[in-house]
């Protein structure tokens, strides 16, 4: 074990400061959400009354966000997994160009994507004012993450040879997909799913333009709360958001390691 010189401790200190910079505000926000009076600080006591107020006032936006995230997941699974398969089997310049195109909604600002959707579909009143309008934006934004995640695993397992092996034993296309392809892509599908749900729950830039007063999502509600309500209520709302999203983030972190290890193992 090398002796740790002053350089190590300096850098560690620096890194800890950066970490504090990122985490302390999160902690503070969560704390403020359960404090009776933020001005007076924690001494004024803890309460769940702000959280209750958030729940009363914003329960439907919270459920709507969850609903949209799940619907987004369903869409990206149905659209993205077959698309990833097609791209994995047909490698080459065309596949790469298509991948580039799919990433575009992530590359350009959410504002632009939302504006494009609005100017095109404004006339379809039913569509424009329903939650499916927001869903569309979310699907465009999260699809590349699902595709990328599944594609990465498919690349690591040498999909072509596995399928040829299964075909040589008599397996037709559907049988191959359900017994060999999908089971071996499980980790990629799972990681992609977590990513999609997390990103959908937290999406704001597009949703702010796409929403109507009747189709608010959690981040949109947050913006409302910050602007119009007490700091404590805004903090409580943020607390609810964190409570929902942190488990998802942990899930992503936990999966990321085994995927790397797993793909390295199958690459033997």
């Amino acid at each position, binding site marked *: 074990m090398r002796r740790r010189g002053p*350089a190590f401790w300096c850098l*560690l200190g*620096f*890194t800890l400061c*950066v*970490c504090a*910079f*990122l*985490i302390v*505000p*999160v902690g*503070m*926000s969560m704390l*403020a959400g359960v404090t009776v009076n933020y001005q007076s600080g924690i001494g004024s006591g803890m309460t769940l009354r702000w959280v209750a107020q958030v729940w009363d006032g914003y329960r439907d936006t919270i459920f709507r966000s969850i609903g949209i995230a799940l619907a987004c997941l369903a869409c990206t699974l149905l*659209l*993205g997994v*077959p*698309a990833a*398969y*097609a791209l994995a089997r047909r490698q080459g310049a065309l596949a790469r160009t*298509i991948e*580039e195109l*799919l990433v*575009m909604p*992530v*590359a*350009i*600002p*959410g*504002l*632009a*994507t939302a*504006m*494009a*959707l609005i*100017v*095109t579909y404004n006339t379809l009143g039913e569509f424009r004012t329903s939650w499916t309008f927001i869903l569309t934006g979310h*699907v*465009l*934004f999260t*699809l590349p993450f699902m*595709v*990328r995640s599944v594609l990465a695993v498919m690349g690591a397992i040498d999909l072509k040879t596995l399928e040829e092996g299964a075909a040589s034993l008599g397996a037709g296309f559907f049988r191959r997909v359900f017994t060999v392809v999908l089971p071996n892509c499980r980790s990629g599908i799972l990681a992609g799913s977590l990513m999609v749900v997390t*990103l959908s729950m*937290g*999406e*704001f*830039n597009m949703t*702010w*333009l796409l929403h109507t007063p009747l189709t608010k999502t959690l*981040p949109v509600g*947050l*913006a409302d709360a*910050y602007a119009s309500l007490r700091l404590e209520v805004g*903090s409580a709302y943020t607390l609810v*958001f964190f409570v929902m*999203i942190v488990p*998802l*983030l942990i899930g992503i*972190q936990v999966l990321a390691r085994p995927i790397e290890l797993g793909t390295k193992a199958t690459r033997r």
Partner: protein
Amino acid sequence: MSRSNRLLLLLFLPAGIVFAAFFLVPLGQLFVIGGTGKEGWSAYGAILTNRNYFNSLVSTTLLSASVTAATLAISGIAGVFLTRNRFWGRVALVAMLTFPLAFPGVVIGFMVIMLAGRQGVIGDVTEWLTGERLVFAYSMTGLFIGYVYFSIPRTILTVMAAAEKLDPKVEEAARSLGAGPLRVVRDVIVPGLKPALLSAGAICFATAMGAFGTAFTLATRINVLPVTIYGVFTEEANIAAAAALSFVLGVLTWAVLALARTAAGSTVAAAG
């Protein structure tokens, strides 16, 4: 085998149709609408000719550039350090550094307010120290802090991935030839990380240029391009100008990211 090609096309079709109908066509429409305002096609040059828009572009660019520089420096140092050293609690540190990846800009704006707003912690500290409250949340400085906040997790992942791939043997060779640690950093590590830094930097820059939520939350006086566009759209109801501006902004960020992709493999999430 054309039979299998047909099957692959069929599998891709749902995604392709959705993408074409809800992205490609609307983008085309956006482009067209941008040219239908009272200025016609010269609306596309308005970003340079209109004084307000131009100022907005300049301040956004300067902000994004400084955020990128600061973020790369911070992430570079912390990222390489974390990759190279194993110590108790390291995994937890890495996890904490990458958590904010999915926070919406609104939340980040809110946290900036908590830090440096009218009732903010920093205000308390400075009041206690100097008697005067320091409030900078609602200015470019606050925006800068917010942007650095969401940029660090993104860039640090890219830097760590690249640092892991650096060949330690090259450094050993340099040391065997007499290079001290700072020289090794300058001559071996930084050049080795250059593609990753370029790519992460481009992503950081593009994201900052297009970020909306944070600036929106911090509101009022800040003049960044996405907020300007939003204002043109909602307050002035000038759809054509807003369309043209957002199209231009979209092309700009896409171009920067395309450059990033040629320098490195994959892109990390761009949101905020």
